[in-house]
């Protein structure tokens, strides 16, 4: 990792990283894991948005309901689910782009839940976001160089030479080489995959420790997706960046995630190591999400997919029972529609919120 940004970062950052590399070598030593704070820790967070219904009435949307996650240093957590599941809200919450109604957010052990924008300045440099749509998230009137240098200008990097050098480094890191050829282009002169790489370079130029990748490949051709994902995976290995990978495509998460949290209507319904969740999914919703993925197989066209009917109802009310009840193929009336299942560890490190596996309920 180039060290030209060291001056911008609090000195504790690098020592923490070297400790963490120890803990990566010995992942199950609880003493070491306790000693190093995770990159991101969200505890019992809820987000309630107010909506307007008519002139005087207001309503509430429970976008997140009592959610806890942890993302370790150099770890990727996939947040998977349909539109409206709260995955984007949770991702933005970890960046403090959304305020929690309840709960806390910690970044490297430091509570950032209530910090003011001014106090958050250091955090804003170290945590970045890559947006979903590479066609609308880049200003069409700015050249690639200007797009990438803009965050540095905001950070107060005065020297134009330094800004250009760092932009070129970021371009090289995302394989837009030679940097001079791509730097002078406008976004509309590039393909979708190239634009998304500009979006990543823009996040990278500040040398962040944590990046939220919000569906970074869903608008890109299937054949170019893996290129972007392996680029992000390399950043994780080479620079130790932590990621929250927001996606509705579980297959892509397999290559670019260590752990996954499957979300439904603002809650986590299943979480665990990515391989365990994909190979032995527990929650009926996870099973349905996996069954929906078409892999190239000539036999596909002769069978119907096992899909859950309907679409999620809107999250206006926090339900008092299992949120998946109305669509669940294995629902148990009398049990699932009377209480809410709690997230319980069923196998090692693999938790699910479903009454098929545990009768534990969420306290009302």
């Amino acid at each position, binding site marked *: 990792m180039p060290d030209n940004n060291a001056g911008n970062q609090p000195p504790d950052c690098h020592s923490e990283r070297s400790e963490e590399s120890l803990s990566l070598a010995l992942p199950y030593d609880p003493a070491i894991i306790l000693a190093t704070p995770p990159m991101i820790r969200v505890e019992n967070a809820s987000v309630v948005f107010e909506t307007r219904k008519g002139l005087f009435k207001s309503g509430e949307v429970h976008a997140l309901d009592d959610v806890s996650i942890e993302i370790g240093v150099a770890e990727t957590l996939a947040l998977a689910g349909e539109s409206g599941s709260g995955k984007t809200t949770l991702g933005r919450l970890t960046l403090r782009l959304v305020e929690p109604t309840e709960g806390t957010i910690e970044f490297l052990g430091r509570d950032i839940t209530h910090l003011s924008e001014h106090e958050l300045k250091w955090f804003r440099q170290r945590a970045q976001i890559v947006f979903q749509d590479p066609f609308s998230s880049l200003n069409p009137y700015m050249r690639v160089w200007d797009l990438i240098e803009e965050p540095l200008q905001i950070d107060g990097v005065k020297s134009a030479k330094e800004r250009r050098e760092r932009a070129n480094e970021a371009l090289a890191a995302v394989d837009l080489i030679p940097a001079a050829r791509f730097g002078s282009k406008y976004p509309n002169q590039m393909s979708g995959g190239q634009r998304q790489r500009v979006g990543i370079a823009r996040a990278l130029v500040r040398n962040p420790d944590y990046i939220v990748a919000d569906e970074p490949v869903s608008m890109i051709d299937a054949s170019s997706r*893996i290129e972007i994902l*392996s680029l992000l995976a390399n950043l994780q290995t080479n620079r130790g960046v932590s990621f929250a990978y927001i996606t*509705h495509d579980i297959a892509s998460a397999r290559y670019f995630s260590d752990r996954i949290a499957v979300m439904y209507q603002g809650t986590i319904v299943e979480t665990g190591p990515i391989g365990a969740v994909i190979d032995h999914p527990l929650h009926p919703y996870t099973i349905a*999400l996996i069954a929906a993925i*078409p892999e*190239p197989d*000539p036999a596909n*066209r002769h069978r119907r997919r096992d*899909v859950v009917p309907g*679409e999620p109802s809107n999250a206006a009310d926090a339900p008092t029972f299992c949120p998946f009840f109305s669509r669940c193929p294995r629902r148990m009336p009398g049990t699932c529609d009377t209480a809410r299942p709690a997230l319980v560890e069923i196998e090692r490190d693999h938790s699910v919120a479903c009454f098929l596996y545990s009768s534990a309920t969420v306290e009302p």
Partner: protein
Amino acid sequence: MTTPLLRVQDLFLYYKAGKRPVHAVDGVSFTIEDRGQAVGIVGESGSGKTSMATALMRMLPKNVELFRGSIQLDGQELTTLSDDQFRRQIRWKKIAMVFQGAMNVLNPVVRVGEQVAETLIFEGENKRTALARADQLLERVGLPAGIGRRYAHELSGGQRQRVVIATALIMNPELLILDEPTSALDVSIQAQIMNLLKDLKEDPGISMIFITHDIGLASDLCDSIAVAYAGQQVEFGPADRVLVEPRHPYTGLLLSSLPRLHDPTPPTPMPGEPPDLSNPPSGCRFHPRCPYAFDPCPKIMPPEYPIDDGGHARCFLNDQYLAGDRYRIHLGTAHDA
């Protein structure tokens, strides 16, 4: 031998743009043999997939430089029809299309039932009958009764896509062209729409052209697959063979670039970038990105080599004389073994 439902032969469509014409469709041929079959047209953005579809619908922009070739539907040659004949006899009545992103451009101030019925009313059908027929169709595509009275903004994305499909079906077409019909939807809703398309293939037996960039999704519906690259068709054949034993390296790479659920081997990224259609590479258009390219590839455009299953592939690896040891080497995917 029976006439195939659709036979497209040597179709060319060039656009005027600046100094050089854009070769959007460059000598494409494929067939749909039977009613109720689906052909998938798979390729990256800019490979000319959508231009091919608009050429079939004859909805061409003004800057067309060249439009040539033969399109036969049920034995009837369509390219010799006048624009007026085509509009009266073919468009929407025999060939209908679901456009990419159409679900986002439904009229917000007209009830969806009326939008579905619009073509029928325009054709002189009594409004009440047309609306009843629209309601029937909306139910056929899996929407709850009475949804015809609702407005587009009251519907979810999956429901709006079903409305668009019903709109295309109102005149009972034989052939339905679907341009990336699920690209804006979540995978679980996508699976629901794919199930609906499978049903419509069987009953009432609609034939389909399914345009997508995702060869995995094409395998979910299509009996045969055409792979488009830089305006050409590099491979065509039955899905049973193309997906398992591709005869063009581009098809092999498309397959191996997809992540597989239960296989932790990383997929192989597709090398390079798609070419500029106004200045395509010499020889084989794929040669700059092809890991198998050899001597003739940059110099000569490979012809369409016929394959014994009725398909064809535009690659010298299928030429016993030129390819030598490379003849029909296994272009297998990273996920084999």
